[in-house]
């Protein structure tokens, strides 16, 4: 369960996030949709405690993150905006490192690493160094290390950005599987098709503000159009950056 209430963040003169509130429930895929620069990444960074909000509060499982950063981070699995790998470590070592940082005992860690390697279909790259990995392979490693501690809440920042069709399908399957396991999945995207294909609930954000929040049906109904794409355009006021 992820909740955000009246979050506000300013960088110098630029207001990146302006009074943003929404919540993402367990067993539901919530999409944070907005053009580039809308404040999605900043919002996620405040949820992962990497950035402190100027005002407002973010809560994970009802726990205010500002007061309990370590416990909050324990309860989330994050695919951050930056998903760099260590070129000299293998895929498996990346996952094991994340596991060690979560304090998972070796005995528990080993089978879990194998499970993730199978789940993300990374058997062939598991023991190769990350140096020559393709973009899709990198995202898989980053996803595996985000999920090593079986978090209740999963936050993915533009997970399918730049992926080919097969990798995109794999990531979508993973997101659905996480939802079916009852997890709270929050992911951000600037691609409308991505959000409409996956989300049970959509939060539209632009220029740091939440413009619409509801199920795809509710958003269509509010905009008075049968077409989700039309609805987005009418909510945001332009089609800037949303259509690929």
């Amino acid at each position, binding site marked *: 369960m992820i909740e955000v209430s009246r979050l506000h963040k300013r*960088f110098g003169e630029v207001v990146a996030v302006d009074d943003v509130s929404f919540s993402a429930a367990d067993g539901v895929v919530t999409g944070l949709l907005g053009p580039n620069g809308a404040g999605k990444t*900043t919002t996620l960074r405040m949820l992962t405690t*990497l950035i402190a909000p100027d005002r407002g509060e973010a809560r994970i499982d009802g726990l205010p993150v500002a007061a309990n950063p370590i416990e909050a981070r324990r309860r989330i699995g994050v695919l*951050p905006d930056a998903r760099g790998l260590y070129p000299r470590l293998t895929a498996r070592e990346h996952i094991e*490192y*994340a596991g060690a940082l979560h304090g998972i005992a070796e005995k528990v860690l080993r089978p879990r690493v194998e499970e993730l390697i199978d789940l993300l279909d990374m058997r062939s790259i598991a023991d190769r160094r990350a140096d020559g990995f393709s973009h899709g392979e990198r995202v898989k490693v980053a996803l595996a290390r985000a999920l090593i501690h079986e978090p209740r809440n999963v936050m993915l920042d533009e997970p399918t950005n730049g992926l080919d069709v097969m990798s995109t399908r794999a990531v979508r399957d993973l997101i659905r599987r996480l939802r079916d396991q009852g997890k709270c999945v929050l992911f951000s995207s600037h691609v409308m098709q991505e959000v409409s294909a996956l989300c049970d609930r959509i939060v539209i954000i632009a220029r740091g503000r939440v413009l619409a929040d509801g199920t795809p049906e509710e958003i269509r109904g509010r905009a008075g159009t049968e077409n989700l794409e039309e609805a987005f355009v009418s909510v945001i006021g332009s089609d800037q950056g949303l259509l690929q």
Partner: protein
Amino acid sequence: MTFAVFRKELKDHVRDRRSMLSGLIMPVIGPLAFLGMFTLIASWIRQDKPLIVPVAGGANAPNLIAFLQRQGAIVETAPADFEAQVRDGKLDLALSVPEDYGKEFEAGRSAPVQLFEDSSRTKSRPSVMRARRLLEIYVRRMSALRMIARGVSPTLVAPLEVTDLDLATAEKTAANVLGMMPLFLLMAVFMGGLHLAIDSTAGERERGSLEPLLVNPVRRGAVAVGKWLAVVAAAVTAIVVALLGFMLAIARVPLQDLGIKFHLGAPELIGMLLACVPLAFFAAALEMTAALFARTFKEAQTYLSMMLLVPIIPAAFVTLQPIKTTLPALLVPVLGQTLLMADVLRGEPPPAAWFAAAALSASACAAAMLLWTARLLESEKIVFGRGAGG
């Protein structure tokens, strides 16, 4: 968690060939330079062997023989077959004084002497040169005496008088070279972990792995300490490699023959280690803090190589112009360690309390830097670089 970070950074470092090379080749440069310089100095000393001048017909020129002996040459009676022996290299040279030497000399003419040498032999060249130099001195003196006897000032025919003042005796040079050892060890302290310090901070951010690292439930302090321990381990490895190198290099040169009463044994090695390791604590933290302010790996490299001059300059100064070891000086990182090492080298090991004082001071500075590093990792500007938006 700290251990997990430490283990990962070390593994990463060991696999980085460039980083390992820069960390390990540098510390052996000092010992190699030592080996070269001491070998050179030892060869000078060999020149200081007494000059042996076999003379045939020495009785014909008693004054010349007496002069040679006063100048430190050992004058021997040449064997009968001295010509053959010089040709065969058994003798470096031989001097022959013909019978009419005395007559010619008395008459004020040029008295004949013959210097036998084999100019194709390099080995004998230093001895021949020295004998020739002695003979020239004798010629100059005699001509001066002859001119004075005729009422002419000898300076008239000597418009220039060049005096060679070689102040650097072999012993002094050897001591100076030995005095550079602290400088090389300081380089090991600062360079040993440099690459890792940059790679695990500025490099980590540049390749976009800092954000994924920090979303794990680990305190920033634990991340900083884990990385710091890895940098310290790399620096200590460099120090140990450098010390072992010096030990091997110094074992190969006969320091006693150079007039140096220094023995690089276990107590000296431990003293050097005790001085250097606490400084490595400080150097590692300092490098990490500075690197975090840089935007990229390259920029950090530029900053840090400039920053390294700051500790090296006072250390070089102390090496060239020794100052007395005092408590306040000991408390200054780098300076204190340089003084301790210089004292150990001089064979006057400082009391344990001094080592402790210098170590405590360096460790305290390291702790302060480490706290700063942890604070920087909390800062949004540092973690995301300039312009954290999106």
